[in-house]
């Protein structure tokens, strides 16, 4: 279908618009309709997976329409190996988030479902945009729905958390806007074409130097805040803890991936020299994050906060993998992005289920649940083991590949990172033991009900995927390998650009390998013959 990506991206927002006209009192209708819309979007996105050609490195399902031609802005969308998985992760997690809020959100339900659907459009737009302006529009636009989700339906300290989240992220992304503009003008001055199109911009080789470093840093700051990379992580614990369950699932599952996605899509291809130069620093920060996140998780009394800090730790692994710039590291990083979305999303779902029953998240308030809620405990065990990286489940695949890649680049860093897995086992298993095992220490816990059919329906798909990726990861990694290989080749050929013109390598933007799923309409893309390095 020609406009499949546009349909997938905007259908949630259109659905939200339709829901605006449903009267507030029909709560059941609202919930069901929203869930159906989200499921429909997921169904629409499945052809993206099945129709994706894993051997091709270029962008597929591309669509391009003029938007502001004089400025060089076009509506250009497409997916490659990296974004396809993230799009599917988004469309997969959103119905689960909505389903988890079935009884949890009663006040202002209509605004909630509308906000979640609008947020979904924003997130999908970020992943599919191939135009810097369009990307930025979606990047900023999805801040506000998330702000409302945390601020209106969150916990006691929700306003502080929401405002902190917005201001922190906004500051970073506004600096990125300046870098976008600077890059746009430099590219235009050097090649004569003023455009925001990522595929065109990625073909241009920027000379290494202060300008490239500053632009890289501006982009990197915005993404580092999102990831979050230590020390820009301080917004995360508050936002995650105060957000409602559905909000936390989306925040941890998808929003954090936008940061790592940004590094892959922009920092590496556009600023390869700076990426290589700052690589050691970023890797070091990532490893610090892994260990620090794990240590802080260990001492948390609140389960949700423990899971929040574990996100810092897990995404440290992803960042480490990305900046190894090896095939294993990158593939591991991408698959770990998906894994983290699934396992941490599931962890938040289960914490939410606990909270719905007992209205507390303190570990000390639980204990001995395995006797009372065996199904819950079993699911919890699978998810905990997935999070800590037990072989056979998805977490191991990602962590192993990342560590293999990291070991080849910097054995010491890899060694320290490996200890992160040990610490993950410490905090996760200790938490699990205190919550699930042992004797029932609080009388209220004896009366807990086990998983309802709705909760089974929410958790089962996640666990299926957790096992599937753990046992047969090629179904997913196979789709990304070509893209990542081309990315590495692009970075290597563009960095340290010699004065000799280098032939156009097989970058993700290579038109020869792009599968024509949509006719590319007239776009003023001037093709400078070989990439001429900026003197």
């Amino acid at each position, binding site marked *: 279908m020609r406009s499949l990506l546009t349909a997938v991206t905007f259908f949630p927002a259109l659905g939200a618009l339709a829901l605006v006209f449903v009267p507030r009192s029909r709560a059941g209708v609202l919930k069901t309709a929203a869930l159906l819309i989200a499921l429909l979007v997921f169904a629409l996105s499945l052809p993206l997976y099945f129709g994706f050609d894993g051997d091709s490195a270029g962008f597929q399902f591309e669509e391009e329409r003029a*938007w502001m031609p004089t*400025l060089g802005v076009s509506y250009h969308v497409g997916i490659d190996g990296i974004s396809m998985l993230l799009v599917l992760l988004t469309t997969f997690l959103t119905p689960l988030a909505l389903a988890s809020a079935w009884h949890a959100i009663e006040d202002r339900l209509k605004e909630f479902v509308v906000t979640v659907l609008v947020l979904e459009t924003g997130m999908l737009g970020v992943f599919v945009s191939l135009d810097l302006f369009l990307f930025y529009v979606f990047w*900023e636009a999805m801040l506000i729905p998330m702000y*409302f989700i945390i601020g209106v339906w969150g916990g006691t300290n929700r*306003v502080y958390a*929401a*405002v902190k989240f917005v201001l922190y992220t906004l*500051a970073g992304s506004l*600096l990125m806007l300046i870098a976008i503009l600077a890059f746009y*003008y430099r590219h235009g001055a050097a090649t004569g074409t003023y455009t925001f199109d990522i595929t065109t911009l990625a073909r241009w080789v920027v000379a290494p130097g202060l300008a490239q470093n500053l632009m890289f840093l501006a982009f990197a700051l915005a993404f580092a805040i999102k990831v979050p990379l230590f020390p820009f992580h301080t917004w995360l614990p508050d936002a995650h803890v105060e957000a409602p369950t559905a909000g936390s699932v989306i925040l941890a599952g998808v929003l954090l991936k936008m940061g790592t996605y940004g590094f892959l899509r922009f920092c590496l291809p556009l600023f390869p020299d700076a990426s290589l130069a700052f690589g050691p620093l970023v890797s070091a920060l990532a490893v610090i994050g892994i260990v620090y996140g794990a240590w802080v998780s260990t001492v948390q009394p609140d389960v949700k906060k423990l899971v929040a800090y574990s996100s810092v730790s897990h995404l440290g692994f992803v960042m480490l993998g990305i900046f190894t710039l090896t095939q294993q590291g990158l593939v591991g990083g991408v698959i770990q992005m998906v894994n983290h979305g699934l396992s941490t999303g599931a962890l938040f779902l289960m914490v939410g289920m606990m909270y719905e029953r007992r209205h507390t998240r303190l570990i000390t308030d639980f204990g001995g649940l395995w006797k009372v809620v065996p199904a819950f405990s079993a699911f919890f065990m699978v998810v905990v083991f997935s999070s800590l990286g037990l072989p056979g489940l998805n977490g191991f695949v990602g962590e192993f590949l990342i560590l293999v890649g990291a070991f080849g680049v910097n054995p010491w860093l890899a060694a320290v990172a490996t200890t992160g897995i040990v610490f993950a086992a410490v905090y996760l298993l200790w938490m699990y033991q205190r919550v699930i095992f042992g004797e029932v220490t609080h009388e209220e816990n004896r009366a807990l009900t086990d998983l309802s059919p709705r909760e089974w329906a929410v958790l089962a798909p996640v666990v299926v995927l957790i096992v599937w990726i753990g046992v047969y990861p090629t179904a997913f990694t196979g789709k990304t390998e070509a893209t990542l290989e081309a990315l590495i080749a692009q970075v290597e050929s563009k960095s340290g650009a010699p004065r000799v013109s280098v032939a156009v390598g097989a970058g993700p933007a290579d038109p020869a390998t792009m599968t024509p799923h949509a006719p590319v309409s007239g776009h003023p893309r001037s093709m400078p013959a070989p990439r001429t390095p900026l003197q």
Partner: protein
Amino acid sequence: MTELAIPAVTIGPLAPVLIVLGAAGLVLLLDLLPRPGGRELIATVALAGVVGALLATLMRWGKPGRAFNDMVVLDDFALFANVVICYAAALVVLLSIDYLRQKGPEAGEYYALLLFATSGMMLLAAAGDLVVLFLALELMSLSLYVLAGLFKRELASSEASMKYFVLGAFAASFLLYGIALIYGATATTNLDRIAATAAGRAHDPLLVIGLGLLLVGFGFKISSVPFHMWAPDVYQGAPTSVTALIATGSKAAAFAALIRVLVTALRGSQPDWTALLWIVAAVTMTVGNVVAIAQSNLKRLLAYSSIAHVGYMLIGVVAGGSAGPGAVLFYLLTYVFTTAGAFGVLTLCERARVEAVEVGDYAGLARRHPVLAAALGLFLLSLVGIPPLAGFVGKFYLFAAAVRAGYLWLAVIGVLNSAIAAYYYLRVVVFMYMREPDGVGATLVPSFAGGLALAIALVGIVLLGVIPAPFADLAQAAVAPLLR
């Protein structure tokens, strides 16, 4: 007997202004007649006048005209500014209809003064001569001074009017002295002829001092730092619909005149005024945003935010070229819709029969009046600069012009200020959506005209945010005649 040489008088270029003035005269006449239910008639006549002027402007597009020996220049730049001003005036008229009925005296002179002010603004944008510029400025300002004090029985209104008048007269005298010095340096007050004469004489001391004094005068009118002190008090004290006009129309007209003077007449001194305005822009943005954080009165908060937005627009003036002023014009268009909308919501809300102007009055608004809260929320988000609303695109064009001209640091200051501004705008959103009112919260004053104005403003900010290209290109094209 010798033939009397009668100079050719063309009043075509004055058509939009004359329509507005005609409507003003008609309003004054109608005010004299006994009127059972005549207040709607007066407001309708006023609205018709403004809309008529808008249509006349649109009809003259692409057909520049000059009148009175080049004293009035109705080129595309003036036409674009006229459109912006007419939109502002139309929205304010719509907001005034029910606001006045609720709050204060409904006098025919309100609409007459409003129309006089509008005609002054339109003439200001089309002034091709420094004397006409001063004339139009005074016409606009005097009308606004009186309008600010319209609520005679309220101390705040009278105080606002007094402050505005005294400080305004003071600044106007600076402006006049600057004009006199420039005349002394160049022997002409016509902008084009000044450009020709001043081209090679950028360091003539008379000219430099004249330029400085001119910037002081204009700086007051656009409320840039350090001439901004009148703005918070006047915005807070004046009737809210008048505040809307001051914030939108007078700013648009003053910026249009400023750009015209700087870009045509004083092009030779560009390095001088660019350096000066760089500092003014940076300080204005920062002071406006930082002080706004401490405000609890919504009108004062919007006043300081207006000051900050002036700072952003000055970035465009500094950037220069065709991108800079074009971005400023486009930003003024988006700014009119956003600000008129925000003040419009204020006119529609009251708490305990008093205007709801404290931020705390709006606590929990989202529950009782979700549409109104959503409207105010959207206007505030547009002011923050969140896509896909108009405010984002306006800021984007401004920062793009700055980066292109090489003013990276100014752009960085601009974006950091935008991040700071998000805090106080979002605070209002927090009160509306995330807090409950203590006691009874603000309630809606039903008003069809006010609702219409809000709807137009909302459509405007969404349209300009999603499809900005045609309007932005028009703005860029409008600046072209100035740069010749």
